[in-house]
C-alpha cells in the first residue's frame, strides 16, 4: 500500500492529511503572528525581519511553494471529504437536531472560505502589492543604511483604514474559530487525543485560539488608536524625530535624496 493512497484515498488517511496540513498551517499562522507582533518594537525590527525573509531568495520560494501546496492539499482534501459526506446521505432528514457538535465544528467550511478569501486578499495586498496603489508601499532605510520595504508603515496604513481593519478582525476571528475545532480535531485525527489529556487539550486549544485572536486584534487596536504610528517621514510627511542621525537628514527632501543615493549604491 502506498502512502499517497492511504492519505488521499482512505477516510482516515484523508483526515490525517487534513490534520497534518492543518498543523503546518497552524504553525505558519503562529509564526506569522510572532512576526507581526514585532510591530510593537522599533520599526527597524519588523522591517529588518521582513527584509530578511525577502532576501532569502530561492529558499523563500521553496517555503512559499510548500505553503501553497499545503493550503491546496488542505482545501482539496476538504472539498473531497465534503462531497463524500454529502453523497453518504443523498436524502436528508426532514428534521434533525444537533446534539453536541460545537458551532465552530459545524461552520468549518464557512470559516474556511472566509479565511481563504482573506489570504488571497492579504497576499495581493502585501506580497504582490497591487491592491492599494504605489503610495501604500513605501520604502525606508535601516540603521545600517540598507534600503528596505517599510512593512511597519504598510501595516499601520492598512489598519488605519476602518473597512480593512474590520474585515481583518472578522477574518482573524473566523480563523481563530476555525482553529478552535481544527486544533483538537488535529490531535484526534492523528490519534493523539487520548483520555488522560483530552480535557486539558480542549481547554488549551480554547486558550490558544483566544490568545491568537487577541494577539492579532491588539495590533489592529493599537494601530487604530494611534498607539503605533507611522514613523516613516516619507509617508507621514514629517521627520521622524529630532536629532535622529540615522540618515542624517531632518527633512523630507533629504530623506528622499538619501534613499536615492542608497539605491544607486546598491545597483
Amino acid at each position, binding site marked *: 500500500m502506498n502512502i499517497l493512497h492511504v492519505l488521499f484515498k482512505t477516510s482516515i488517511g484523508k483526515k490525517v492529511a487534513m490534520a497534518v496540513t492543518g498543523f503546518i498551517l497552524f504553525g505558519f499562522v503562529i509564526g506569522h503572528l510572532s512576526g507581526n507582533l514585532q510591530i510593537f518594537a522599533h520599526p527597524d525590527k519588523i522591517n529588518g525581519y521582513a527584509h530578511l525573509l525577502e532576501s532569502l531568495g530561492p529558499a523563500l520560494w521553496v517555503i512559499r511553494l510548500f505553503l501553497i501546496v499545503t493550503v491546496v492539499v488542505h482545501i482539496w482534501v476538504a472539498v473531497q471529504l465534503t462531497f463524500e459526506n454529502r453523497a*453518504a446521505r443523498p436524502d436528508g432528514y426532514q428534521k434533525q437536531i444537533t446534539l453536541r*457538535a460545537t458551532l465552530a465544528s459545524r461552520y468549518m467550511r464557512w470559516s474556511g472560505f472566509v479565511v481563504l478569501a482573506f489570504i488571497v486578499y492579504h497576499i495581493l495586498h502585501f506580497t504582490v502589492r497591487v491592491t492599494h496603489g504605489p503610495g501604500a508601499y513605501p520604502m525606508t532605510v535601516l540603521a545600517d543604511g540598507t534600503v528596505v520595504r517599510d512593512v511597519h508603515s504598510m501595516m499601520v496604513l492598512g489598519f488605519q483604514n476602518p473597512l480593512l481593519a474590520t474585515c481583518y478582525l472578522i477574518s482573524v476571528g473566523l480563523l481563530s474559530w476555525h482553529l478552535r475545532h481544527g486544533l483538537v480535531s488535529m490531535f484526534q485525527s492523528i490519534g493523539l487525543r*487520548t483520555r488522560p489529556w483530552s480535557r486539558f487539550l480542549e481547554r488549551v486549544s480554547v486558550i490558544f485560539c483566544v490568545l491568537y485572536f487577541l494577539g492579532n486584534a491588539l495590533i489592529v487596536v493599537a494601530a487604530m488608536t494611534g498607539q503605533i504610528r507611522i514613523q516613516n517621514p516619507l509617508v507621514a510627511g514629517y521627520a521622524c524625530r529630532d536629532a535622529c542621525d540615522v540618515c542624517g537628514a531632518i527633512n523630507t527632501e533629504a530623506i528622499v535624496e538619501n534613499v536615492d543615493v542608497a539605491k544607486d549604491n546598491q545597483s
Partner: protein
Amino acid sequence: MNVKLRVWRQKNNDTEGGFENYEAKDLNPNMSFLEMLDVVNENLTDDGSDPIAFAYDCREGICGTCSCMIDGKPHGPETGVATCQTYMRSFKDGDTITVEPFKAKAFPIVKDLVTDREAFDKIQQAGGFVSVRTGAAPDANAIPIGKDIADLAMDAAACIGCGACVAACKNSSAMLFVSAKAGQLNLLPQGQPEKDTRVLNMVASMDEAGFGNCTNQYECSAACPKLISEEFFSKLNRDYMKASVKTLFKAKAL
C-alpha cells in the same frame, strides 16, 4: 394523552417516500414509543390500511434492532436509550412527533422505518474477530488482563450495532461503530497479533460501504444508546496510521 405523528412511509428503496399523518389517542404515558406504534398499527389494520413497518425485537434495549429517528434524534429525545426504551412520557400531550428511518447511503431503506444495516456485518466480517480455532484456546486465566484494560474493552464492547451513530452523524460516518469494534479487540492482548490487518481491513470495508467521513463532531457518541465514547476514534486513527506505515515499510519483527 394524544399525539400527532408524521411518519415516513416508503414502499421500498426504489420508490419515493413521503410523510403520512396519523393520530394516536388515549395513550398511557408509561407506554413505550414502540407500543404506541403498535396501537397505531392495530388501528390501521382495523381500518384495512397497511400498518407502519418498523424494526424491533428484544424491546429491552440490547438487540439493536429498533431504529427510529424521532423528532430529529436517533432513538428519541432521551439520552442513552434505544427507541424501545423511549416512553411516551418524554413527549407532551398534543405534540406532533416526526418519525423517520435511519438514513444513509450505506443503510438502504427496506420499507417505511426499516433500514438495512448489513454494512455493519460486512465490516465485522472484514476483521472484527480474533482468529482462534474452537478448542485451541489456552486456559482462560493464562492471559492476565488488567482490570482497567478489561473495563475499557467492555466499554467499547457495549455497542449494540443499532446504527444510531451513523444516523446522527451529519456525514453518515460509521467511525463510532468501527472504532468501538476494532478498539475492543485491539485493546486486549488476544487481539494483538491481528491488530494491523484488523484496522486496515475494517476501515477499508467501512470506506467501501459508502459511509461518510468523521469530522470530529461526536454527534454519534451523544446519540449512542450505550453512550460509547468518541475516545476510541483516536485509538483507531492511531492504530490505522501505525498499521499503514508498517505496511509501507514492510516492517517485520526483524
